[in-house]
């Protein structure tokens, strides 16, 4: 199968591949074995990705329900639907579920698992069984955490700051232990991806011919491997403190709570790049496909992923400007935080450059790309704003910070997640969804998102602290606006859930509806179990090469 044959007829009716499952010689991974066991014990990266998708979406729903509870509670200044204790548990669980159960595994474990080997022309990831193990480890951790949540919950905020977390009477240990276990799953995935990228590239795919999604995953994986153990240890120490009074951060005996914060953010700041780098990777693929252009400045984008991962490790102290940390450290961390912004800016400008002179088709993934671009710049620049040391004195722990990170986590990462979901839906299931509904819900989500979180920036300016169950009345108007926006947002998600489920069953069969020239589209949709039938396809010069071969003149300028 040559590349040209697979992308010959974009959007066309079912290609010959789509019928494989019927005559069964090279069945697609979806139907190759239909027993429950063949799914639960599979080592096929694609099936593992699909199983991850199920669970991750479920946890997104759970986290989203918590979010809506928060928003409802904040509708009025006083108690609205719950008491203070419940509220405190709700935002903690919202944070924990969204971060540890949803956002960190979301793109790498679903789309990374599915696409990485396809993009490298490999039959699987390097350690298929570890890959399966990571799923079960994740579920075990999630089980622990959920059990802890149901049996008392936890009210420390997702940051688990001591000494509060060491003394609260809520069930800290099971949730922390759950998060600790999930950390292993994250490490396993990361190791697997790194080794896969190093050893499993098909002949012809050199480092600088790898799709940018792979670069992004590679950088993400490095962070996962290097940062996760530190929080693992920290979670153990806090559990030990809570259960047995180990005393590592015990103030009465000379311990230092700020040390805890250093260790926490040593992981959690790089972790925000675990959440956003894969999103950047997805968007590099999406923007190439839909503007039918090679990425403008491929190397710059690739290097900047690694650059972000690296300097991301030097910025953790910017969460602690007013925590009693030294002025000197604050200066260093403040300055280093700025560097991350520069690397991100490189990416942003290169994406815009990719659209330049392209041939843009405005589809649902591209709609999300537009939203993403705005949110990333706005969210990222407000990140720079809070990294500006003197300004953070006022903004720290107010709704401004809440708005900043939702802008970048919901605004950037979820937009990318949704774009990936729509972009690769045909790849994963061989079917397509209804474009009209896609655009409607994208519009709803982008609108609802702005309505939810822009008021929160203003709330933060006005001085509303975060994690507030009750608030002074002067903040109510903006809170009502935010809650209204959140309901719009939720509505958008419900529509997506409906039409995608519909498409899963009744969707039109397609092979490569976008005419994409990404490497993953070289094989059939859905791919056969071993990704390729027959000899390995040869890979074109680079992914996303849409130049007319007849007049392959290269203009080396802007």
């Amino acid at each position: 199968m040559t590349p040209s044959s697979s992308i010959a007829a974009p959007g066309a009716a079912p290609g010959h591949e789509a019928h494989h499952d019927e005559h069964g010689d090279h069945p697609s991974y979806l139907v190759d074995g239909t027993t429950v066991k063949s799914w639960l014990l599979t080592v096929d990266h694609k099936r593992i990705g699909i199983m991850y998708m199920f669970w991750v979406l479920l946890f997104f729903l759970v986290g989203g329900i918590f979010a809506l509870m928060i928003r409802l509670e904040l509708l009025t200044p006083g108690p609205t639907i719950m008491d203070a204790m419940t509220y405190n548990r709700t935002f903690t669980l919202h944070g924990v579920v969204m971060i540890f159960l949803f956002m960190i595994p979301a793109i790498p474990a679903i789309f990374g698992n599915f696409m990485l080997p396809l993009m490298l022309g490999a039959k699987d990831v390097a350690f298929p069984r570890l890959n399966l193990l990571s799923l079960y480890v994740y579920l075990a951790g999630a089980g622990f955490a959920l059990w802890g949540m149901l049996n008392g919950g936890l009210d420390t905020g997702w940051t688990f700051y001591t000494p509060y977390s060491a003394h609260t009477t809520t069930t800290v240990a099971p949730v922390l232990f759950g998060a600790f276990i999930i950390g292993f799953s994250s490490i396993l995935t990361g190791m697997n991806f790194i080794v896969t990228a190093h050893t499993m590239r098909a002949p012809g795919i050199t480092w600088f011919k790898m799709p940018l999604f792979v670069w992004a995953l590679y950088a993400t994986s490095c962070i996962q491997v290097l940062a996760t153990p530190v929080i693992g240890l920290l979670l153990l120490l806090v559990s030990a403190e809570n259960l047995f009074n180990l005393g590592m951060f015990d103030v009465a005996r000379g311990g230092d709570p700020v040390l805890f914060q250093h260790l926490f953010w040593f992981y959690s700041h790089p972790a925000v790049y675990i959440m956003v780098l894969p999103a950047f990777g997805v968007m590099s693929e999406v923007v190439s496909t839909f503007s039918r252009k090679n990425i403008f400045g491929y190397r710059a984008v690739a290097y900047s992923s690694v650059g972000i991962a690296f300097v991301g490790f030097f910025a953790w102290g910017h969460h602690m400007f007013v925590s009693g940390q030294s002025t000197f450290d604050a200066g260093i961390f403040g300055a280093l935080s700025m560097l991350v912004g520069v690397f991100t800016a490189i990416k942003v400008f290169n994406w815009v450059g990719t659209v330049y002179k392209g041939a843009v088709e405005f589809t649902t993934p591209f709609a999300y790309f537009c939203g993403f671009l705005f949110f990333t710049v706005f969210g990222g620049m407000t990140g720079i704003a809070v990294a500006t040391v003197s300004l953070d004195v006022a903004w720290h722990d107010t709704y401004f910070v809440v708005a900043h990170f939702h802008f970048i986590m919901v605004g950037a990462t979820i937009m990318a997640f949704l774009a990936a979901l729509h972009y690769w839906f045909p790849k994963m299931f061989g079917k397509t969804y209804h474009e009209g509904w896609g655009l409607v819900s994208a519009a709803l989500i982008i609108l609802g998102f702005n309505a939810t979180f822009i008021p929160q920036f203003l709330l933060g300016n006005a001085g509303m602290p975060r994690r507030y169950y009750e608030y002074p009345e002067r903040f109510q108007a903006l809170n009502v606006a935010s809650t209204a926006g959140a309901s719009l947002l939720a509505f958008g998600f419900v529509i997506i859930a409906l039409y995608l489920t519909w498409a899963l069953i009744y969707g039109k069969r397609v092979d490569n509806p976008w005419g994409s020239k990404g490497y993953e589209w070289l094989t059939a949709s859905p791919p056969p179990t071993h990704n390729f039938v027959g000899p390995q396809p040869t890979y074109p010069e680079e992914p996303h090469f849409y130049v007319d071969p007849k007049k392959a003149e290269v203009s080396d300028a802007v």
Partner: protein
Amino acid sequence: MQEHHGAGRYVAIWLILSVLTVVTVLTGRMHLPSFGLLLALVIASVKGTLVALYFMHLSEHRGANRLVFGVSIFFVVLLISFVLMDFGTRFRLANPPGSQYSDLQAVDIGANKAEGRFGGNTHEKQDHEKHE
């Protein structure tokens, strides 16, 4: 891809490691005033390097493996040094009382003889109110 060495090499490394252990114990016993810990850590690093290079065959492995090891050590150093910088330069009273970087006494954080935390810290509650 990997050469095969005789057992002699491992024996040699083992001997060096043992000797270094004895050396570090001896220098440690001398309680050298300022650079004692430093010396001990240097010796430990030498030992660690030997183990990594020869017992773990890092010297023969591909670049990627060396990079992984190097980067992880680098991040350990990064973590420790930024944290220490913080303690060394922050507002003195924000350090744990009783520590060498704080002007407050340990009793201020509720330590007293009766409760046997630090034992008999003889500094009673005293004139530390006037921080200047």
